[in-house]
């Protein structure tokens, strides 16, 4: 039983070891496997192990290792087998047999290093006292004696160092030195202070202790206190450096200093002492107030630089006070101890600090970073006016230091066109939403204004802001044009803007006000940045971007620069109109026509031309219909920054007006060849025709030569002379406005424009009347009924026609004859302006009368404008029309 349970227990352990199962982990499987194993041990019948067979097999294995070049394994195995022999028991063959059964390709898998891993490394032998004593027994003399720690004193400092050297020497292995004094004396490393020195200091501090302890008890004088003037001087100098003292009470938060009233000097009265000390305390308070301000935290760089400058001044002041103190400490010198002298010196030294303290008080009321610069500037000017050179220099240096910090974003803007997005101090801001390149110059960047609408910049820089702004924009423009930066190497060296170069450079610098010298220096600084960049941009605009080309193209297309081409376009259009073509204003045909006419003109890029027509309810024969034709000619974005979008309507209007004038001229030209019947009043007709021609020709000449020609030449000249994009844009804007005004297209000239249009419509009507008359005369042999019908219809149309010049629709006319623009039959004869009715001579007379009226109106109006206005062209036009 015990045997079974032993086997069972051992089997369980073996199973757990081999499989990882246990009673706690998968107990059922463990139990099953264990019982299976035990059953296998019991039930299966095997032959007894033959020990000779085992040994034979083992010898065979060793031989096999040897044959197959694994002598190491063979030797190791043989050695172990020999070791085992004396220790073998009756079960050894069985165990060896088991090992042979479980052996798994030892030739391939076994290495000798596996044996090494079986044994843990032997730890090194531990050092014991016996080993130490064996080597070095402590049998020398004096080893066990007590150590005298007081043997070496601190007064023998030289000997201390000597001892150290000796110790260092003893650390090395001794060769022939005696082995005394091996153990170092701790005394050598300790320094005992001399008690007499401490006693001296305690005695000196006694009066102060009594002062601080008795000050609350005694309100009046404290006699026999023993405070000398030197002590008071020392305390004062400490106080001025912001240190706590006994004679003065210091409030650490505000820095306010109060003197102790119980202090009395033996050689002066208490009242005078009190006055002096009060003055010094006041001075100390103000200096300390500045110290407290200099410790405040600020996030704006400008204020931080100002704080830094103040800190430097305070340090300089402290150093000066220390210099004063040094002369009292110098044992060899004989300094005169005078508190009054200290007071005077301190006041002189502290004067710039007091100015700064006043400044910080003004600043603290509302912390506006630029105010710091403005206040500094004002104080510097004031210091110059009040002839305080020391303060002027001090404040000047601080001002320029802070100015350099303020100029950093300006420099970055003017050199790179870069603005920091988080910067709220610089007066230029970027409008991120504007991404259209054609408004890059005008709209992308804007000036920052403060709440009162003023520019967010110090007042002394406002004069130059425009140039700064434009320089930065020029840089951005240049970058967008991708101009090679290397070309621009002639940037002037930036003149230094500091106190010495601005205020001390010129010999008469002291006489000029600081504001003037600063303004001059700053303008020079701005000029050094604003140099080549704008010139490069201008050259690029003219050469690569084709500014001249674009201007030429606009002149050709809109302003009739080549009258022949313009006339060719216009005549073709008018022919279609007169031939009653429904599609006379079709934009595709007009486009093709324009492309064909301007294809040989080099500045014009015909692919970019696009024509569109606006819906217009004006009568088809009225010249107003010609205003519905619009030309779109897109310009490259750099040019669009100069020739802006809002100037294109003016070009369109001038084009329309020219087309209208050309129309009238065209009709009158054709009229010359129309033969007139004998029974009409030739003289009146000819006169009217002559007058109309003269008017139209004068107007045409005025528009093309006087207005367009001269203004365009002027504009080109200004563009060539312009400094930057801003000037160019302004020049072009002025040109467009001038065009609009001189062509009488501006809003305040609308009555004149209307009158001109009326005259032109009158010309059209007169021409139509002539043409219809000519037709009726030539077709008298034809169907008279048709002619009479036509005449009847004409008369009724004339009767129904209104005298409204402004109306764009003629509903009556449309209703009467039914031959409207949308009607089936288009009859150009019935489409006229409608003021002419009655017989031909009557019509001519009425037309003449109307023409006179309008002409006089125009002339009188032009003369009036010419008298009041600045342009002489109207007066000229009036005279020519008369």
């Amino acid at each position, binding site marked *: 039983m015990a045997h079974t349970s032993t086997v069972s227990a051992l*089997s369980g352990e073996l199973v757990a070891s081999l499989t990882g199962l246990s009673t706690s982990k998968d107990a059922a499987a463990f139990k099953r496997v264990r019982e299976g194993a035990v059953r296998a041990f019991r039930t299966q019948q095997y032959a007894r192990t033959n020990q000779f067979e085992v040994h034979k097999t083992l010898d065979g294995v060793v031989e096999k290792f040897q044959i197959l070049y694994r002598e190491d394994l063979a030797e190791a195995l043989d050695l172990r087998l020999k070791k085992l022999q004396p220790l073998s028991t009756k079960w*050894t063959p069985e165990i*060896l047999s088991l090992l042979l*059964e*479980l052996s798994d390709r030892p030739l391939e898998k076994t290495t000798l290093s596996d044996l090494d891993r079986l044994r843990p490394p032997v730890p090194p032998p531990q050092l014991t006292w016996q080993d130490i004593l064996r080597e070095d027994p402590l049998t020398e003399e004096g080893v066990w004696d007590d150590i005298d720690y007081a043997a070496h004193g601190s007064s023998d400092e030289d000997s201390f160092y000597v001892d150290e050297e000796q110790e260092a020497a003893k650390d090395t292995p001794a060769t022939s030195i005696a082995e005394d004094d091996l153990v170092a004396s701790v005394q050598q490393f300790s320094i005992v202070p001399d008690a007499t020195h401490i006693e001296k200091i305690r005695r000196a501090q006694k009066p102060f202790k009594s002062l601080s302890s008795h000050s609350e008890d005694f309100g009046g004088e404290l006699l026999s206190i023993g405070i000398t003037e030197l002590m008071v001087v020392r305390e004062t100098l400490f106080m001025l450096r912001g240190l706590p003292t006994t004679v003065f009470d210091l409030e650490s938060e505000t820095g306010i200093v109060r003197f102790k009233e119980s202090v009395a000097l033996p050689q002066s009265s208490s009242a005078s002492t009190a006055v002096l000390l009060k003055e010094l305390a006041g001075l100390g308070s103000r200096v300390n107030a500045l110290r407290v301000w200099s410790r405040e935290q600020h996030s704006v760089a400008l204020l931080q630089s100002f704080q830094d400058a103040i800190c430097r001044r305070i340090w300089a002041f402290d150093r000066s006070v220390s210099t004063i103190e040094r002369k009292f400490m110098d044992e060899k010198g004989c300094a005169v101890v005078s508190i009054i002298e200290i007071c005077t010196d301190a006041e002189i030294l502290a004067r710039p600090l007091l100015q700064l303290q006043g400044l910080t008080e003004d600043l603290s009321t509302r912390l506006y970073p630029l105010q710091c610069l403005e206040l500094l500037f004002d104080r510097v000017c004031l210091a110059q006016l009040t002839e305080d050179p020391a303060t002027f220099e001090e404040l000047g240096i601080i001002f320029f230091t802070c100015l350099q910090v303020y100029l950093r974003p300006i420099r970055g803007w003017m050199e790179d066109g870069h603005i920091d997005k988080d910067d709220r101090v610089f007066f230029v801001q970027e409008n991120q939403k504007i991404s259209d390149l054609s408004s890059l110059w005008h709209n992308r960047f804007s000036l920052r204004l403060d709440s009162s609408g003023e520019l967010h910049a110090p007042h002394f820089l406002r004069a130059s802001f425009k140039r700064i702004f434009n320089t930065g924009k020029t840089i951005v423009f240049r970058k967008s044009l991708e101009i090679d930066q290397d070309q621009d190497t002639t940037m002037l060296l930036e003149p230094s803007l500091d106190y010495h170069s601005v205020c001390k450079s010129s010999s008469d610098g002291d006489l000029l006000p600081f504001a003037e010298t600063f303004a001059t220096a700053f303008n020079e600084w701005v000029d050094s940045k604003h140099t080549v960049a704008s010139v490069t941009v201008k050259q690029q605009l003219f050469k690569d971007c084709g500014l001249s080309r674009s201007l030429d193209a606009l002149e050709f297309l809109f302003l009739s620069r080549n009258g022949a081409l313009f006339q060719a376009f216009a005549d073709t259009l008018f022919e279609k109109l007169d031939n009653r073509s429904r599609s006379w204003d079709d934009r595709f045909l007009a486009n093709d026509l324009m492309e064909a006419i301007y294809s040989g003109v080099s500045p014009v890029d015909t692919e970019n031309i696009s024509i569109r027509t606006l819906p217009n309810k004006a009568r088809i024969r009225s010249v107003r219909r010609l205003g519905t034709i619009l030309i779109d000619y897109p310009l490259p974005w750099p040019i669009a920054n100069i020739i802006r979008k809002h100037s294109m309507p003016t070009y369109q209007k001038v084009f329309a007006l020219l087309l209208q004038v050309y129309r009238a001229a065209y009709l009158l030209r054709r009229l010359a060849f129309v033969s007139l019947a004998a029974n009409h009043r030739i003289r009146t007709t000819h006169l009217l025709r002559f007058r109309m021609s003269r008017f139209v020709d004068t107007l045409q000449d005025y528009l093309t030569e006087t207005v367009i020609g001269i203004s365009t030449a002027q504009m080109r000249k200004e563009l060539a002379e312009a400094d930057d994009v801003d000037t160019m844009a302004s020049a072009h804007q002025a040109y467009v406005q001038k065009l609009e005004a001189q062509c009488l297209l501006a809003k305040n000239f609308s009555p004149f424009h209307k009158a001109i249009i009326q005259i032109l419509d009158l010309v059209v009507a007169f021409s139509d009347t002539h043409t219809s008359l000519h037709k009726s005369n030539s077709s008298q042999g034809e169907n008279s009924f048709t002619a009479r019908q036509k005449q009847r219809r004409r008369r009724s149309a004339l009767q129904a026609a209104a005298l409204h010049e402004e109306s764009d629709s003629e509903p009556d006319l449309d209703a009467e004859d039914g031959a409207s623009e949308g009607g089936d039959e288009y009859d150009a004869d019935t489409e006229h302006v409608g003021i002419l009715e009655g017989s031909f001579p009557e019509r001519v007379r009425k037309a003449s009368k109307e023409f006179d009226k309008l002409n006089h109106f125009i002339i009188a109006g032009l003369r009036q404008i010419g008298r009041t206005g600045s342009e002489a062209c109207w007066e000229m036009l009036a005279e020519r029309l008369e």
Partner: protein
Amino acid sequence: MATQTKDKKQAAKDVVDILEEIATLLNCNLTRHQISLCISLIENGVNPEALANVIKDLRAQYPEPELVEDEEQG
């Protein structure tokens, strides 16, 4: 007596050491503990061939613990 026991123990330890080395040389993949258990089983009359077959069967059914054995040996 104590010396004899001690000597016996030392002799048994030596035998196990040598057998462990032989098992390593023959690549039997047996830990020291397993060798001890096998010795105990054989001394309790278990046939070595039967024991070897059981061990092989267990290794075939539960191969993972074998890898742990290798790591321990290594």
